[in-house]
């Protein structure tokens, strides 16, 4: 029993009681119900005092210090009280920290709710506004108090109400978890406000609906922009329609115009040619060489003019004609072209090399013109050759286009002019060397471009030239594939 000296035990006992008093004091400071902790503080102080007095008196009188049963009891009690107080203080600290965290969380929520840039509201399941932020009030123009007395149905546009209520029903029934819709609210001043509404449901721990969280975004500005855009677009379409019919009218005028021009211009040409011929026939004998030469020039000029008129008309027509899109055999077109050009090939020695060509899609008349033009050029510019070689073929097939070529061994051209070849009215030779109007290749390029293809050429002076054109592969209208 006397393991420790009684003195030490006494000191320990007193120490414990003082410690307990100190803890009780700190609780007085920090906890509520301060009176309780104060009384406990007092109790511990008094108990400590009692022991101190008795200890000091034993020491003063020189009596042996004894640590009896009551002292042991006191030791236990003090220990328990101290432990309890320490525990309680820790507990209170935890509670305080939890409270502070909760307060901070609530403050954060409030800030989010109040200061969001969109309207947020809590709405009861029957539609009453329970809690609204300032932005929502700003959007609909009511104060908080005014809104609290209303339901969302009160300020919803009747045309949007059914959809809204239907969505609400679905959410309550659990069919959907949230919904989003554009709708109109009546602002307090009577005007309409377009908003984007997103609604979700908060359920309690028993999965029963508690309240809706509604996020309301003011989209009046963007709706207005949308309306304006629509109005502009419609206006633009009106303008386009008007412009198109204007252009169509001009086109029709142009067609009649160019048609009558060509005829009105041709008649005098016919007379020039005709009467020069009659004059030549009539006075052939009495004309000297110079005079005959003059008449020849007049005749040739008239003929050139006729060709120019024809080419211009054809060029103009190609520009605005409706383009057909049918499948055709290039072999057939080439055969037709060669027969059309038979007058130019009469008396000429030409080695033709016509390779088999695939069928293509396009406008047969226009493609026919392209082939005639290219072949006619080949025939014309190989005239200086004793034996002309003209080859028509297609390059090895590519995935999305066919490339065709017409190659000749004629006078060729300098590659530095290759860009100019397809220009309108551009020629690389004078009419003395080779006749021509400068429209043929321009027409070819125009037609091929309308078909979605490209044109280009390669040549070497005095050796020959190759003219290429590509045509994209299309799907045909009736099945098949290219």
């Amino acid at each position: 029993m006397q393991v420790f000296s009684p003195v030490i035990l006494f000191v320990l006992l007193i120490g414990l009681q003082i410690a307990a008093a100190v803890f009780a004091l700190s609780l007085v400071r920090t906890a509520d119900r301060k009176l309780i902790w104060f009384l406990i503080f007092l109790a511990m102080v008094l108990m400590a005092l009692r022991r101190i007095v008795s200890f000091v008196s034993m020491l003063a009188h020189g009596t042996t210090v004894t640590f009896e049963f009551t002292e042991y009891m006191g030791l236990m009690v003090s220990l328990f009280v101290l432990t309890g107080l320490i525990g309680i203080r820790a507990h209170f600290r935890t509670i305080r920290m939890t409270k502070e965290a909760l307060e901070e969380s609530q403050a954060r929520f409030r800030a989010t709710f109040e200061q969001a840039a969109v309207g947020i509201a809590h709405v009861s399941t029957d539609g009453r506004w329970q809690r609204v932020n300032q932005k929502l009030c700003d959007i609909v123009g009511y104060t908080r108090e005014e809104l609290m007395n209303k339901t969302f149905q009160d300020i919803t546009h009747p045309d949007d109400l059914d959809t809204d209520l239907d969505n609400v029903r679905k959410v309550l029934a659990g069919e959907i978890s949230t919904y989003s819709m554009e709708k109109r609210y009546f602002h307090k001043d009577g005007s309409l406000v377009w908003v984007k509404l997103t609604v979700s449901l908060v359920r309690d721990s028993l999965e029963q609906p508690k309240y809706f969280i509604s996020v309301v975004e003011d989209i009046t500005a963007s709706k207005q922009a949308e309306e304006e855009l629509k109005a502009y677009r419609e206006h633009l379409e009106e303008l386009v329609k008007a412009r198109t019919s204007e252009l169509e009218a001009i086109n029709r005028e142009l067609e009649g115009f160019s048609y009558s021009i060509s005829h009105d211009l041709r008649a005098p040409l016919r007379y020039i040619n005709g009467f020069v011929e009659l004059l030549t026939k009539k006075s052939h004998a009495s004309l000297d060489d110079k005079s005959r030469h003059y008449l020849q020039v007049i005749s040739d000029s008239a003929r050139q003019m006729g060709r120019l008129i024809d080419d211009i008309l054809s060029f103009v027509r190609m520009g605005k004609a409706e383009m057909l899109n049918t499948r055709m055999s290039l072999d057939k077109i080439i055969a037709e072209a060669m027969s059309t050009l038979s007058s130019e090939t009469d008396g000429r020695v030409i080695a033709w090399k016509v390779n088999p060509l695939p069928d293509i899609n396009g406008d047969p008349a226009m493609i026919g013109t392209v082939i005639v033009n290219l072949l006619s050029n080949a025939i014309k510019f190989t005239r200086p050759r004793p034996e002309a070689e003209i080859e028509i073929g297609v390059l090895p097939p590519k995935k999305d286009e066919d490339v065709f070529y017409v190659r000749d061994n004629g006078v060729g051209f300098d590659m530095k002019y290759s860009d100019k070849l397809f220009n309108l009215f551009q020629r690389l030779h004078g009419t003395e060397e080779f006749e021509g109007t400068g429209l043929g290749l321009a027409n070819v390029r125009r037609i091929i471009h309308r078909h979605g293809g490209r044109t280009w050429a390669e040549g070497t002076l005095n050796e020959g030239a190759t003219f290429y054109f590509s045509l994209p592969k299309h799907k045909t209208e009736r099945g098949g594939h290219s």
Partner: protein
Amino acid sequence: MIELKRILLVEDNANDVELTMEALNEYNLANTVEVAKDGEEALDYLYYRGRFTERPRGNPAVILLDLKLPKVSGLEVLKHIRSDNSLKMIPVVILTSSHEEKDLIEGYNLGVNAYVVKPVDFHDFIKAVKNLSLFWVIINEPPPGSLK
């Protein structure tokens, strides 16, 4: 025996008249041609009016009819001819520069015998006129009642 069949040429353009005459000359037909320079004169000729009151009786063997005429147009002349029992049998050849489909349609609807577009080329024009006259004046048998 080539009888003196008459050709009525209805043409407003003097140059075309001259060229046509040159062509007809090849078959010595130039003096069988009577020229009316517009639709009204054409009808005058057919009805023995105006300057044609004293002309020999009988219809022409063929009428070469231009379409673009002053006063009365070619198609109107044709309509008159075809609606008159005494004239409707006369062969009419439209000889015009118009390529227009609507003229073709109306011409044939009104019962023209042939529609020839004046060739742009002078030589082709001469050839066409010669061929026309060869057929209608020499080869073709005109309806009874035509001038002899």
